[in-house]
């Protein structure tokens, strides 16, 4: 089984559209959406949720108001501004550090595991698909990503491929999504910010010894930037496996909940996706 993870550095480059398209094209695979902050694959891909599991990925403090003597020691010691002057904890700001319970003279404060999201296990036309959603203002998305990938790996049996829609950015969440990958595909776009974010995320993947490949989306938006992306990839010995043009009809297809693979007007995009897949297989043989 080969695991391919799609990442982007910058948000909104078209990563999920590429993954959803491949999900329609590639057979004998499993799928995981590791973009837990803003999961999007489940919107485009018709699926049936088989199991929904709550996930506790962080701790927060709770004050037992019946015990609290309002000495304000917790308020004074909290460096995250998470305890109000009337001794109420703001769960959105609590980091779960436990400093307040160390100073509480009456043991009114305890740390509790907090629900930080849900993991979904779904059936996608007979194939496994796991996804998740992080709770609002929650911490611990890296752990949730690890959980989504763990879940799909438990289910995998004879599949040839595992496709993972990774997280944007360069931080810990991305690292959690790319670990264990046979290759990661960076979907970038031909803009100034696209190029700078590509460089940073490529360094992250490189550090973990994971083979990286690049797909340039909207490559004809700015030929100058595209050229610089190509030069950069060449200098890093990274293959460019796909170039997708700027195409307003892609957005129109998405609006009808269709991937480019299911839209007759997007034959040229479909061919690009297929050739991207062929190149990906070739490069990872």
């Amino acid at each position, binding site marked *: 089984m080969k695991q391919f993870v799609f990442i982007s550095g910058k948000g909104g480059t078209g990563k999920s559209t590429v993954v959803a398209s491949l999900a329609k094209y590639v057979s004998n695979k499993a799928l995981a959406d590791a973009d837990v902050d803003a999961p999007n694959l489940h919107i485009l891909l018709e699926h049936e949720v088989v199991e929904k599991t709550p996930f506790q990925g962080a701790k927060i403090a709770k004050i037992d108001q019946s015990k609290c003597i309002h000495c304000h020691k917790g308020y004074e010691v909290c460096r995250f501004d998470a305890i109000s002057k009337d001794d109420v904890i703001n769960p959105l700001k609590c980091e779960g550090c436990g400093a307040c319970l160390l100073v509480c003279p009456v043991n009114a404060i305890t740390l509790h595991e907090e629900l930080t999201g849900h993991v979904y296990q779904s059936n996608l036309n007979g194939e496994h698909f796991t996804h998740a959603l992080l709770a609002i203002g929650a911490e611990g998305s*890296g752990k949730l990503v690890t959980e989504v990938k763990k879940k799909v790996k438990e289910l995998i049996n004879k599949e040839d491929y595992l496709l993972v829609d990774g997280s944007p950015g360069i931080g810990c969440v991305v*690292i959690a999504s790319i*670990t264990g990958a046979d290759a990661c595909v960076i979907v970038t776009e031909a803009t100034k910010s696209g190029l700078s974010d590509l460089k940073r995320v490529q360094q992250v993947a490189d550090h973990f010894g994971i083979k990286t490949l690049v797909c340039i989306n909207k490559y004809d938006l700015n030929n100058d930037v595209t050229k610089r992306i190509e030069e950069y990839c060449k200098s890093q010995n990274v293959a460019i496996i796909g170039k997708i043009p700027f195409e307003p009809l892609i957005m129109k297809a998405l609006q009808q909940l269709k991937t480019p693979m299911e839209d007759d007007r997007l034959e040229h995009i479909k061919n690009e996706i297929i050739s991207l897949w062929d190149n990906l297989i070739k490069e990872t043989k």
Partner: protein
Amino acid sequence: MKIAITSTGTDIKSLLEKKFGRAEFFIIADTESNEYKVIDNKAAMEAGGAGIQAGQTIINESAIALITGNVGPNALRVLTSGDVAIYRGQSVSIEENITLYKKGELQQINTAGEAHFGMK
């Protein structure tokens, strides 16, 4: 002598795991008796500091060497202070890595890879 190897599975036929802190399993093998045991890496699901906790687990198991892929600077500091030698394993089974270790064919790691600062 006991050595620890990061593993993708629960027996010595499993492949080496390249991650250290977030490896799912550690295999602790006795190089003389050839016996081994598997331990779950509880640090794998920690929010942050997985490498540090995992390092402490290895030290508590009294391993004198660790075979893995990459270790971050935090894990390196812990392992070094506990006198654990670190070796870069190869992408083969645990069993084969142990053999390579015994033959002295694994490269020792003295510097850390880049830290990835835990999970937020």
